[in-house]
């Protein structure tokens, strides 16, 4: 039962120790310490990687931050407990942008992760370690978190499937908060079917998270195989701007044609307030972050930098041990909430958020079952290319943040290659309608991801993408 997990761990250890490794993991399990807690579970023996902002009792939970370098949580995140209850084996913790703030995994205090398809490029972020680990075949599935696209964008960059469920579908208990009203745990997998299975495992009500839903969790995997016959798929014109790369345009058109051939009806729609999504997100996210990260003060846990008095200790701890992007967002958010600016920034952003929600509601109320867009404006960029231009970096989330602002489910599925690099299409659906979303995703995947497939160009030195697949009907 533990064979696959042991092989995965051994492979990851060997690969990550080698020269020019991906650096997808921050910590890997001791092969001797592996165990299956539920041998009868649907994921019995399946090796799973977990983003290092989800708490685990058997690994440190660093959030990619120097401040929490040695922090070990006394409790498992609810989603991690559910993985273990399903028989999965947590084989390690994956790299991320510090506190999930970033779009390239370059903001990790412990060094960036590289894209398995081209090691000079970023894997996306902030769940870059999880996306790279799946794309490289280290593990068949991984957990990530998605606040503005942090599961979907790296999934797109690495050629894997990334699901962000409806806000409230999966418990956030044990997900170290970045922006609580936007954060949601998500999945990164090789296929839509596996994503559906993993999502079903982690989803469902948790009394420890007041924002988690009491709704029943449907059989997502069945939905993923259902097909799109009769579904109406909207294509929002704001997500296909004139400036879009013709290669991308062609991939989108190809995917839409195949969906139409499978029985879906394609309908142009408009989400006019999406243009405000980035500024809205970069006010609300930092505002919540400035409060959520206040607990990292050096008083109770984590590293501390001493000072002459309490105030100096706070200042030194936080200015020394938190990274540039984290501090940038804390300052942005503090400013946006401060007296005199609160209404202008936080208040205005809340209004914009309501308008974005209203856009989606109007489109979905008009009989549209799902929306189809590119996941990102372009494929994986080079390491270092955007680190000095935060705004350019922020714009890589332009198509993904609206789902977080609205709380709706979204998934990124590989739809082909652009400039030789994987590229993803995004499917969005109404609140709690993951089934329709996954039906479309399943059809896009089955329709073929166009030339090149989604396997990495340069095969990693790790194990082949084998290992047990989750039990369930064959894909």
């Amino acid at each position, binding site marked *: 039962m533990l064979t696959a997990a042991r092989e995965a761990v051994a492979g990851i250890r060997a690969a990550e120790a080698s020269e020019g490794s991906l650096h997808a993991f921050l910590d890997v399990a001791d092969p001797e310490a592996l165990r299956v807690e539920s041998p009868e579970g649907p994921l019995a023996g399946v090796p799973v990687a977990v983003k290092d902002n*989800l*708490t685990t009792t058997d690994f440190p*939970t660093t*959030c990619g931050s120097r401040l*929490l370098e040695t*922090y070990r*949580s*006394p*409790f498992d*995140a609810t989603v991690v407990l559910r993985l273990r209850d399903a028989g999965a084996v947590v084989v390690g913790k994956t790299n991320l942008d510090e506190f999930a703030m970033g779009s390239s995994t370059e903001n990790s205090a412990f060094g960036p992760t590289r894209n398995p398809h081209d090691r000079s490029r970023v894997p996306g972020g902030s769940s870059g370690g999880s996306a790279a680990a799946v794309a490289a075949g280290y593990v068949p599935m991984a957990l990530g978190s998605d606040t503005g696209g942090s599961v979907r964008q790296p999934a797109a960059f690495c050629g894997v499937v990334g699901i962000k469920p409806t806000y409230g579908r999966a418990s*956030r*208990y*044990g*997900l*170290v*908060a970045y*922006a*609580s*009203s936007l954060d949601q745990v998500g999945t990164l997998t090789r296929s839509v079917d596996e994503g559906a299975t993993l999502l079903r495992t982690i989803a469902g009500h948790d*009394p*420890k*998270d*007041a*924002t988690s839903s009491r709704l029943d969790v449907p059989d997502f995997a069945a939905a993923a195989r259902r097909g799109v016959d009769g579904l109406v798929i909207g294509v929002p014109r704001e997500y296909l701007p004139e400036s879009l790369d013709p290669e991308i345009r062609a991939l989108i058109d190809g995917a839409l044609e195949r969906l139409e051939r499978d029985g879906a009806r394609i309908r142009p729609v408009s989400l006019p307030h999406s243009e405000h999504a980035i500024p809205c997100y970069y006010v609300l996210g930092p*505002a*919540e972050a*400035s*409060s959520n*990260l*206040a*607990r990292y*003060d050096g*008083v*109770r*846990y984590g590293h501390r930098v001493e000072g002459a008095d*309490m105030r100096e200790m*706070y200042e030194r701890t936080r200015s020394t041990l938190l990274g540039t992007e984290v501090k940038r967002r804390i300052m942005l958010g*503090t400013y946006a*909430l*401060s*007296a005199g600016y*609160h209404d202008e920034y*936080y208040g205005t952003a809340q209004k914009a958020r309501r308008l974005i929600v209203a856009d989606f509601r109007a489109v979905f109320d008009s009989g549209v079952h799902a929306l189809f867009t590119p996941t990102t404006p372009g494929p994986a960029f080079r390491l270092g290319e955007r680190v000095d231009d935060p705004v350019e970096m922020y714009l890589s989330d332009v198509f993904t943040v609206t789902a977080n602002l609205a709380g709706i489910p979204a998934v990124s599925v590989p739809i082909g290659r652009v400039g030789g690099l994987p590229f993803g299409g995004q499917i969005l659906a109404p609140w709690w309608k993951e089934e329709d979303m996954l039906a479309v995703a399943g059809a896009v995947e089955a329709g073929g991801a166009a030339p090149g497939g989604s396997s990495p160009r340069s095969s990693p030195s790790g194990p082949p993408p084998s290992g047990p697949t989750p039990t369930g009907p064959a894909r």
Partner: protein
Amino acid sequence: MTWECVVGVEVHVQLRTDRKLFCLDRPVFGDEPNAHVCPVCLGLPGALPTANGDAVRLAVVTALALDCRVHAESIWARKNYFYPDLPKGYQITQFERPLATDGHVDFDSADGPSRVRIRRVHIEEDAGKSVHDRVPGATAVDLNRAGTPLVEIVTEPDLRSPADVRAFLSDLKRLLEYADVSDCSMEQGSLRADANVSLRPVGVTALGTKTEIKNVNSFSGIERALEIEVARQTDVLEGGGRVRPETLLWDDHRASLRRMRSKEESHDYRYFPDPDLPPLILTDELLAAARSYIPELPRARRERFTREYALSAYDAGVLTQSRATADYFEEVARTTSEPKLAANWIMGGVQALMNARGEDAGTFPVRPGTLADLIGLVANGAISDRVARTVLEAVADGEGSPLEIVARRGLEQVRDPGRLEAWIEEVIDAHPDEATRYRDGETRLLGFLVGQVMRRSSGKADPRQVNDLLRDRLG
């Protein structure tokens, strides 16, 4: 010029619950430091709050007892500031949309019945405690209190003197004790009051500049602190100066106020709705349950006591000082059908004995049924008042029931004329002089002679009968 003093108060009341406001830990006073903490009240990474329904119910009861408008929907908010005893770096409270507004409390001021309007009542969590004297050269933090549920009650500036403030607070405390929502101990910090005070020329309606008095831990302290501050403000204004808005801290040992450093009070709390907690929705069931939980409140009970038991307003006031005393009285009165006698006993011998033993009506070992038996023995003439006091002490000491004690000690009242006459003869023989003077018209000596008979009988003789018999014998 004559100045009018204007005061409003903010009262923090610790709710009597088994659990903290957002986690499962018990709130306690005086246990080992940090013995009652968990991931949630420690603010560990990934922990999330969930609201405790019990605390919400008690807060609703409080609001209803204050005749407030209770809102079906209120919003949890974060108040952000750094302090070592505030684990999350923010306090969860309610800000723009509190639990309840627009209430009032009627109380007895020096000038008669008065009304204070309640502006708002909201729920919030308490902070921990910074302990400065436990570890030499360092500040220690005890988080046992962190997360304990509080209600904050804010009045309108309706109080007009330091004595009024004290009278109001003592009536408010009684009200909350009756509602059974809190221990209301200022010494233990379960009831804390801050006061805002300003002066204005008599006849002027606009408010003057106020100062805030904090850190007071007794009713007498708040009265004293306000007297000092009113005198200071009067001096400032009479001298043509201006009162500066500032916060003053009361020092109980020195009986003086000191200015809070401006650094300590220059906070921008950056309030915003807590994204971890959905709005607090009060269902009709919960409101109905809270309503049914509200007992008869002190003023209503006092009024009823004068009506139902024909007590004087003074007696009814004394007997309703605490809910325990009022309950005690009422049970005795109903069992004996001698409400007057019950009132006299409770305000007299029972109260004296309780004071001597350091007990109150809730803990006094002579329960109402037993006291009713004792009063019954007095009422039917079985024992005298004087004997009854001895019996009461014996019952309190656990020597048995009143009947048992009376029988065992032979304390039954003697009304057999033969035995009474024998004692009378002995007294006349012992005091021939007084007997002769009585016969000669010095009738006030009858009391002396009756007393001598009582003494000879060890208090067992029926004084009324002795009276009659003596008068006949010497008549």
